[in-house]
């Protein structure tokens, strides 16, 4: 197998607060292959954004990486000094956030921001950098880029601004892009355009993407593989088709059934009782145990690790063949879904 572009191993992030140390990520592990879109889903507070911030070294104090590693094309980047990390951000790892205005400076013309970024990361002269900026705007679908390049961010609509941010993320031809809720603030019809754009760009350029969103629909369409996060842990990770159509982890089963579809005909949505625990109150053993209808003794004492189950990984004791509870047939998905 070729080397993954990003490899996250047992990454743990803690926030030290007055009420004690809160563990926002607890041994999160996954790889992203070259040209792959990894979707990261989960409900709010699951740790999706913290995962992204940890990879790019932007965890604000009092937060800190308390364990684990992040490898970018095989090199460790989680322990780099801030200066070295700053060089990697933007150049080798691009970023796209939910609100395009966090990435764009309202006081500068769009072109100035693109040209500056291009010049920081390449040795192009001003004229060539401008040409490249126009080409990028064209590539992300801004009409009349040679004219729009001199506009200010507020002169662009929300969808257009997000296109500019994508152009900005692409400036230095990064190997890896972290897109955190890139379409959440956009309208449905614009959302579809941005998704199509991100997908096309990675296909054409071989860029890898970590696409963070709480919208399963977006993941279903864009991602190659998907990681389902719950309470700072990865519950299940695998090919998007498998995880969406036949989830294995009881939380993933509940999550998929809870989402209304424009095709499905469920009279009732699947209901997971309760809600995600607060970080200060994560249950012992499996973090999902208070809400899980399949929980058994072992779930309350021992944390399930990710184990391989036919091409994907699942963190649930039901799938640990050696120690599954009596009478449970862990491969019977219908039973788990019930």
């Amino acid at each position, binding site marked *: 197998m070729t080397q993954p572009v990003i490899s996250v191993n047992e990454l743990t992030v803690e926030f030290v607060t007055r009420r004690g140390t809160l563990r926002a990520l607890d041994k999160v592990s996954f790889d992203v292959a070259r040209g792959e879109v990894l979707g990261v889903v989960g*409900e*709010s507070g699951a740790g999706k954004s913290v995962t992204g911030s940890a990879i790019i070294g932007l965890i604000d104090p009092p937060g800190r990486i308390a364990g684990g590693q992040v490898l970018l094309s095989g090199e460790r980047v989680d322990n780099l000094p801030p200066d070295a990390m700053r060089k990697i951000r933007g150049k080798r790892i691009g970023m796209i956030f939910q609100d395009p205005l966090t990435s764009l400076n309202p006081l500068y013309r769009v072109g100035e921001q693109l040209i500056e970024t291009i010049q920081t990361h390449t040795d192009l002269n001003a004229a060539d950098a401008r040409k490249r900026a126009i080409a990028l705007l064209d590539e992300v679908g801004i009409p009349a880029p040679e004219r729009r390049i001199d506009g200010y961010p507020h002169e662009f*609509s929300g*969808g*257009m601004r997000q296109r500019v941010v994508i152009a900005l993320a692409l400036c230095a031809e990064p190997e890896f892009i972290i897109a955190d809720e890139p379409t959440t603030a956009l*309208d*449905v*019809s*614009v*959302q*579809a*355009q941005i*998704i*199509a754009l991100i997908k096309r760009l990675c296909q054409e350029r071989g860029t890898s993407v970590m696409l963070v969103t*709480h*919208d*399963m*629909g*977006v993941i*279903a*369409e864009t991602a190659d593989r998907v990681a389902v996060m719950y309470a700072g842990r990865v519950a299940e990770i695998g090919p*998007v*088709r498998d995880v*969406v*159509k036949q989830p294995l982890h009881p939380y993933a089963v*509940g*999550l*998929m*059934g*809870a*989402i*209304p*579809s*424009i*095709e*499905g005909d*469920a009279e*009732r*949505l*699947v*209901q*997971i009782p309760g*809600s*995600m625990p607060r970080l200060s109150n994560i249950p012992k053993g499996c973090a999902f145990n208070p809400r899980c209808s399949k929980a058994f003794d072992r779930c309350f004492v021992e944390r399930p690790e990710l184990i391989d189950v036919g091409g994907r990984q699942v963190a649930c004791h039901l799938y640990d063949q050696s120690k599954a509870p009596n009478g449970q047939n862990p491969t019977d998905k219908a039973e788990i879904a019930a």
Partner: protein
Amino acid sequence: MTQDVSSAPYVQVRDLKRVFDVSKPWLNRVIESAPKQYLKAVDGVSFDIRKGETFALVGESGSGKSTVARMVVGLLPPSGGTVSIDGVSMTDPAAAQERQRLRRRIQMIFQDPYASLNPRWRVGRIIAEPIRAFDLIQGDREIEGRVGELLSLVGLHPDDGKKFPHEFSGGQRQRIAIARALASNAEFIVCDEPTSALDVSVQAQILNLMRDLQQKFGLTYLFISHNLAVVRHMATRIGVMYLGRLVEVSEGKQLFTAPRHPYTKMLLDAVPDLAMVGKPREGVKGEIPNPISPPSGCTFHPRCPLVFDRCRVENPPAIDGVACHAVNRGREAA
């Protein structure tokens, strides 16, 4: 479903309009010699809601859904048109007294349950407020009993009445808002994006609860959402809004199996959905134009694949639930 869907419309909305003055301040206007600017947030919307059904309005941001909702419940005066509920006019000044009697029966639930609950009041007092305001039950003990009953009904514990709103999660707060809406024995509930701020597993709990309560009490809902999948799950009939106009009204599932208006088709093509895994889709063209200077004629014409001359000059009338010249022409030809 065991719903009492009688034929006479319970809610009648006719040619409803709302214009907002969005001009710059007077001084700026004089200096820049800029004209006054008006925004037609709602521009001639008509629909019926039958008793016991869920009528949904969908549309992208700024299409006028919330403005319609606020006019229907009487929170915002219309610039034109009429609303009547159970035969009582919500818009005729002469009907003020009758309207007062109707008020108890109409409630509204908002997207942000936190903003709609008084943070300094205990939940019990919040839910009891409509009971006291409309003098529905006498005696503190009796009211407290009723509040406990309502809390249980929405899946909370009677003791939760002693807590303050900030002690609850988003989903629990929305349950409180629903309990308050039910406290006055409301029969018509207008819900503006009731689950848009919630996580999907909590959204499922609230949507299931709303359906259970509808069956139990025969409630009528005007349900507003930008999420087509949620609307499909909830609605008996659906109206699609674009730039202040209702472009299509359709029976619930039919909107998805046989969309008729070009905008509806585009919207359905665009929506990211679980069912779409691995499927290619049609491209979507353009963005919603600035509502202050909307396109002439059919406001969808710059984005429409079926556009022809007439569309640029004439606003298409709604015929059989669809406002589109191309659809009308097809009908004439057939």
